[in-house]
């Protein structure tokens, strides 16, 4: 009788399973400008390491196996990339892999057991209570500042050349805590936006919609002339604002579902007038049948089938998981069908959208820290610095020359072993066998990976179209509440998020009038929204003064 599994912790534990799914787009807002900025006064350059390093030590490495390889390889030691990594750096590694989906639990148990490996690959911002600062304070991982100065010339140079990124990869107090995963180009930071049936637009003589009015016209035409039962639909599981909260549609009114900044001040989207206008628009669309009748329960499965069956002509999705997945589906039904990425909508033609999906250059996953129990931290640092060298960058992004890529006119081109794998592995799987370009790790991700990875021209174009927003200017950088404020913040925001999600859907579905919004504003205040903003503001100020 499963219900009897006692244990008060089980709620929290099982929760993490689903939490992992939503963490992707859940962040309050993230942004950056890739400043290719000023050269900080260079300190004396560290001595360059020559690879392979000569050593007789074996280091232990704890990290999750990439999901693409589950069922293909059992462990890191069987994966060509990790075999080659040891050879190239000269440092033999001994791997431990936590079970997929149980990384957080396994990590916590490892901490409790008191025995740590030399290196851990883990998300310290997202999945570590109290964040990286606390992990250093409590003596689990090493503060890397001195070690990087002395033994990691490549990373040091990169961070000096990119001060904006440098700010992201350290804590409020200026400590480096891990070898970061960096999305090296704007092109790699945008992957999601509105998607629409181009063939329908052409057939109906409509332009690719740019303004909200264009969208209303297009959706209405889809409904009336193409018989679409759910002209616009998008995944609203596990949260309604999963994909819609980044700025698709509501960005036209200058708001997002979360926090963002204006002139250095933290602003909360749902309490702005623009949010009310967004609700009014969606309410109108819903009542006219332009939005899926089941929108509150729409999951990926129902979105897929709606798009495939031609019940839907527009959605919000990713270049990969959206266009890449749906294009063959719509083609199967209608060979002429084409899905394209539409720009984030605006109110007035010619305006630049204020918001859209945009990830920070620094992603906190795939980062590698060195523990306090490391036998030889210097060696570990030298080994991890490899990924930021020119040679190492090629290796991490593209694998081994002659095997997984060839240089064609100075452009590293994936071989057919990866893109048309003889063992019928999908490109994403095959690449993860030989390189880490398609996911993450301690290196700088190369734009040229994505250019080859997106199989369709429409995917590449979509990314370009979605890129044109001011999101980078307004979104919050990756800030963290201080450990003391974290639980207070969570308690406030849990109530407020519940309130807003409930209000938004009730207004959109027509159960409550648009003017109920004003009533909710008062409630938000009484739930201590101002305190939450204060905590966020303080975190932003600390970030800015890093």
């Amino acid at each position, binding site marked *: 009788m499963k219900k009897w599994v006692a244990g008060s912790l089980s709620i929290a534990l099982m929760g993490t399973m689903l939490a992992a799914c939503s963490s992707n787009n859940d962040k309050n807002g993230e942004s950056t400008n890739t400043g290719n900025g000023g050269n900080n006064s260079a300190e004396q350059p560290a001595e360059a390491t020559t690879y392979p390093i000569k050593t007789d030590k074996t280091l232990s490495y704890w990290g999750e196996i990439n999901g693409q390889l589950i069922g293909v390889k059992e462990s890191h030691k069987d994966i060509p990339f990790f075999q080659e990594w040891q050879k190239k750096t000269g440092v033999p590694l001994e791997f431990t892999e936590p079970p997929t*989906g149980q990384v957080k639990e396994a990590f916590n148990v490892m901490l409790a057991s008191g025995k740590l490996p030399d290196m851990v690959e883990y998300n310290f911002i997202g999945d570590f209570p109290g964040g990286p600062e606390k992990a250093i304070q409590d003596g689990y991982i090493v503060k890397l500042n001195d070690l990087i100065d002395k033994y990691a010339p490549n990373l040091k140079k990169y961070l000096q050349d990119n001060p904006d990124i440098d700010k992201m990869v350290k804590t409020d107090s200026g400590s480096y805590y891990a070898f970061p995963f960096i999305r090296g180009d704007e092109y790699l930071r945008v*992957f999601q936006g509105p998607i629409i049936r181009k063939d329908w637009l052409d057939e109906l003589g409509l332009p690719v919609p740019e303004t909200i009015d264009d969208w209303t016209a297009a959706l209405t035409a889809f409904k009336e002339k193409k018989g679409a039962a759910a002209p616009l639909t998008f995944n609203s599981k596990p949260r309604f604002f999963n994909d819609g909260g980044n700025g698709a549609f509501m960005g036209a009114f200058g708001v997002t579902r979360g926090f963002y900044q204006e002139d250095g001040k933290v602003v909360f989207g749902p309490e702005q007038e623009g949010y009310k206008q967004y609700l009014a628009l969606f309410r109108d669309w819903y009542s006219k049948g332009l939005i899926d009748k089941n929108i509150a329960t729409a999951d*990926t499965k129902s979105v897929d089938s709606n798009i495939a069956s031609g019940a839907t002509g527009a959605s919000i999705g990713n270049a990969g998981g959206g266009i890449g997945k749906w294009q063959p589906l719509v083609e199967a039904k209608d060979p002429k069908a084409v899905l394209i990425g539409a720009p984030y909508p605006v109110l007035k033609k010619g305006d630049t959208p204020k918001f859209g999906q945009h990830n920070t250059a620094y992603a906190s996953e795939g980062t590698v820290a060195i523990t306090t129990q490391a036998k030889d931290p210097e060696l570990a640092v030298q080994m991890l610095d490899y990924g930021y060298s020119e040679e190492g960058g090629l290796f991490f992004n593209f694998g081994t020359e002659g095997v997984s890529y060839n240089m064609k006119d100075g452009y590293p081109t994936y071989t057919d072993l990866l893109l048309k794998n003889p063992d019928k592995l999908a490109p994403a799987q095959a690449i993860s066998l030989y390189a880490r370009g398609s996911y993450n790790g301690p290196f700088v991700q190369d734009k040229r990976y994505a250019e080859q990875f997106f199989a369709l021209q429409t995917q590449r174009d979509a990314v370009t179209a979605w890129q044109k927003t001011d999101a980078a200017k307004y979104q919050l950088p990756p800030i963290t509440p201080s450990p003391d404020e974290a639980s207070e913040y969570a308690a406030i925001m849990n109530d407020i998020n519940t309130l807003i999600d409930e209000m938004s859907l009730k207004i959109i579905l027509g159960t409550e009038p648009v003017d109920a919004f004003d009533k909710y504003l008062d409630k938000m205040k009484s739930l201590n929204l101002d305190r939450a903003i204060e905590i966020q503001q303080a975190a932003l100020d600390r970030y800015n003064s890093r």
Partner: protein
Amino acid sequence: MQMKATFSERVFDVVVYAVLLILIVSTLYPLLYVLFASFSDAGQLVANKGILWHPLGLSFEAYTSVFKNPGITTGYKNTLFILVCGTVLNLIMTALGAYVLSRKDVLWNNLFMGLILLTMFFSGGLIPLYLVVKGVGLLNTLWATIIPFAIGTFNLIIMRTAFKGIPDALEESAKIDGANHFTILFRIIIPLSMPVIAVMILYYAVDKWNGWFYASIFIRSRELFPLQLVLREILIANSTDSMASGASAGDRFQIGETIKYATIMVATVPILCVYPFVQRFFVKGVMVGSVKG
């Protein structure tokens, strides 16, 4: 009078059969759905809306992809070991506990019962349990998923209730014949409670079969992963969400959907076969016969 009785008997029968038939049809659907979906063509399945009456296209791709996982065979082996050893240990321990706790004249029984009941409500959570398991040296062995779960309190209570229901007269006569408690338990009580013992076997076996969580915490070596943990990894790795941030082309996403169902079939069908076996023990009037004998 006679006529009327048979008529109402018939109405009664019709009602019974009709209700059961409706129930059978409606409860059959989920399994059929999973079965059909697992053999469907990935693209067609993703595009499908509404009820699934038959496999859409016919494809074994999902099964091929599940079974090519190197962990499946060892997973089956490990699970079988956990299931057999675990269930045997569970039964012995539960029977011992239930027997003693069903005696009326044991001074400390109420205290024991109270202590045992409390564990249904209060627990220390995962980390302390991990430390204990580590302390007794079970870490990274299959026994770590067996010994710390040697008794299910819920099952203990059910078994105790069943044991209590056995007439005292039987034991009294056995005692007069000089039987000790072990003899009474194994020669009289257990044979008389076979239906409940069978249910216990089912409960425990299903529990062992489905368990993956503690294995994921207590076991590090992949060669020791039970089947459900292996399957869970496949499931998570193939879920659309985990692939969404990547940018792969279509077919990999689509097959994720059928793999989900193939995985469920592989995980479910073997344990479904336990029940018909258990049903053999559901024989009416066991007790009565033996009282007479």
